[in-house]
């Protein structure tokens, strides 16, 4: 990675409300009545890194293709850079890396950047100096004169990112940018994204690699079966799911027994746990766990403390839905009093993966949703 910049400051007056992409009710129904998108509302603010995540076939690429005029929406009330979606001239200010891009194999790396630059309307002089700069930025300078046909997947991806920046775009849409890229390449791409943000550019990333998104995104939207199920900053999305985790140094069954004794009511009834201190003179060995308690059979118990916080037992870990240290002190006391050995206490927030899994899990059955678009009606896949 080098210190080259993507230069040319971004026009700050995109829109008075600072929205670079403002979508309302974007819908796409393919022939055969596959509903790929069912009314998307999504807002991307200027200068942020926005992550769109969702399982395969959720409609992520379809949405990006609608923005890039590759696919015509069935319905769309929305703007990009202040112009209606589909306005061709706006695309001169937008960079795009398609998911499964294929560059003409007879072009060299620098010719690819130059060619797509000229299609984007960049002048010859600008293309000339930007091509070299961008190839250096993506670490492909030594390969600039080699034909794209001889590149590896990761190298093509790097060239793809270089070409998406050739027009100094105000918005860059990257569809699975780290697809097929090795860990070094991923780190490089992350750094480029961060650099773009620092230059005030807006980056829209489509990915199913959640850890990648988590590291760079300011805001995310989760798309499932053509619908946005949640949208916001990672903090906003996880605020009600932040928690403490207390892990005991014990086998799951033994740990469950400790939790059961420390929080008997919450465990038995699934609600309103009260903390019961040990009876005077009671010793741990006097209250051996019943061998067939519900907990030994079913790990993953949910309950609620009397103070209202949720709690959850997962193997030897107890999770309490609170960010208040005061909440967990009595629990620690109760466990310690019963002789439980605490391995760790962590203050935690759910990962994007947790959010994602929650979004793709059917709450009624607990099963994960099948990948693909909404197939409520029969038809062919798009």
């Amino acid at each position, binding site marked *: 990675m080098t210190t080259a910049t993507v230069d040319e400051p971004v026009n700050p007056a995109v829109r008075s409300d600072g929205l670079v992409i403002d979508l309302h009710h974007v819908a796409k129904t*393919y022939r055969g009545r596959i509903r790929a998108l069912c009314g998307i509302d999504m807002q991307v603010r200027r200068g942020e890194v926005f992550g769109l995540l969702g399982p395969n076939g959720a409609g992520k690429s379809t949405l990006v*293709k609608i923005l*890039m*005029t*590759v*696919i*015509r929406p069935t319905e769309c009330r929305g703007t990009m850079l202040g112009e209606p979606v589909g306005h*061709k*001239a*706006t*695309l*001169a200010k*937008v960079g*795009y890396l*398609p998911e*499964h*891009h*294929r*560059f*003409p*194999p*007879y*072009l060299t790396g620098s*010719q690819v950047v130059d*060619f*797509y630059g*000229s*299609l*984007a*309307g960049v*002048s*010859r002089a600008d293309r000339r100096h930007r091509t070299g700069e961008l190839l250096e930025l993506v670490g492909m300078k030594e390969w600039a004169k080699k034909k794209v046909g001889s590149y590896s997947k990761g190298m093509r991806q790097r060239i793809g990112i270089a*070409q998406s920046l050739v027009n100094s775009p105000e918005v860059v849409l990257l569809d699975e940018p780290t697809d097929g890229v090795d860990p070094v390449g991923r780190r490089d791409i992350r750094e480029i994204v961060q650099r773009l943000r620092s230059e005030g550019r807006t980056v829209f990333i489509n990915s199913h690699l959640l850890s990648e998104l988590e590291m760079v995104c300011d805001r995310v939207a989760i798309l499932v079966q053509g619908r946005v199920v949640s949208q916001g900053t990672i903090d906003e999305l996880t605020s009600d799911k932040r928690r403490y985790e207390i892990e005991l140094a014990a086998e799951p069954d033994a740990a469950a027994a400790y939790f059961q004794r420390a929080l008997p009511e919450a465990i038995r009834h699934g609600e309103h746990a009260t903390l019961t201190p040990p009876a005077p003179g009671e010793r741990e060995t006097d209250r051996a766990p019943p061998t067939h308690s519900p907990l030994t059979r079913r790990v993953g118990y949910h309950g609620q403390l009397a103070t209202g916080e949720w709690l959850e037992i997962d193997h030897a870990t107890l999770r309490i839905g609170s960010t208040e240290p005061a909440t967990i002190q009595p629990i620690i006391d109760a466990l310690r009093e019963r002789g439980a050995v605490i391995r760790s206490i962590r203050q935690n927030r759910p990962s994007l993966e947790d959010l994602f899994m929650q979004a793709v899990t059917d709450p009624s059955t607990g099963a994960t949703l099948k990948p693909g678009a909404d197939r409520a009606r029969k038809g062919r896949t*798009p």
Partner: protein
Amino acid sequence: MMMRQTAALFVDAYRELNSRKLFWVTLMLSGLVVAAFAAVGIDKQGFTILWFRLDFIPLNSDILSPALLYKTMFLSLGLKIWLAWIAAILALITTAGMIPDLIAGGSIEMMLSKPVSRIRLFLTKYAAGLLFVTFQVGVFSLASFFVIGVRGGEWEPALLLAIPLVVAFFSFLFCMCVLFGLLTRSTIASLLLTLLFWFFIFILNAADGALVQWRSMAEAQRDALVRQVAQAEGNTRQLLIAERRSLGEELPEDYHPTEEEVAGVNPFLKGLRDKRASAEKTAAQAAKWSGILFAAKTIVPKTGETIDLLERTLISMADLEALTGSSDMPRQTTVDEQTAEVEFSQYDLSMRSATILRERSVLWILGTSFAFEAVVLALSCVIFARRDF
């Protein structure tokens, strides 16, 4: 910005073609064909190839002027066989992949996501394909122009009409190739379907040619019989009058014997007249069927006729007469009076066919073909502009 994008698309098309070896193979073959022209020579002593004299070919510059030799060679070999046949197939093979490659997944997203309208993108690609053919035909025609000028001594700028004509001819096929490419997304499928379409036109042309031939024969036969009947009637009348006068009958100057009298004297006349009536019927039928096929051909592109337009320009009817008939050839189709057998003159038939074909207007040939191309292109544009990729 538009110029920049268009230039970039053309440069890309050039690089794409350049990467296909066939482009250069075609150009080299073109060079060979021109070199073969240059190698052929004709002088007062006879026919030569390079420095070898071919004594067994009974031709010399008195019978066939060098200019006409080169022109006919250019038309029959260079244009009709090389450009309109072999090179056209090579060009189709080279360019058939343009649209399927353009709309292939991963590449079309890159193109459509640029500030270029879909229609402009599509038409620019189309034009780039034609530019390839223009370049190939241009090189060939210019080289031929110089060979005919230097070796034949005639600088014929009309020869360069081959460039727009062959490009127009190719575009009639290329528009179908593009439409098929768009529909099937496959290079091979679009190429095969285009060749099939070309074959269909070829069949139509063959049928048209056969009908024109039939019509020429039928009309030559009819005309010969009309002439023969008129002549026979005239002769018989004169014979009748002379005979009756020799018997002492006084006949006025404007005396016309009745039909019965004439028929009574010439026993063959009835047969001839019947034959004339049937020939007239056949000629009318041939004209009708030929007219129907002509109408049918109006809606399809005229590939053959377009190429033949150059011959029409380069070789005048007078030249054609010189080329078609030697001096001892019968010029007219004749009928034997007694047997009523028709003896066709090859010269007469050729000239009749040439006249029928040359009567077809340039507007009909090119206008309807371009109309066809415009419709196909418009359809392709609509498909390309509305498709989700």
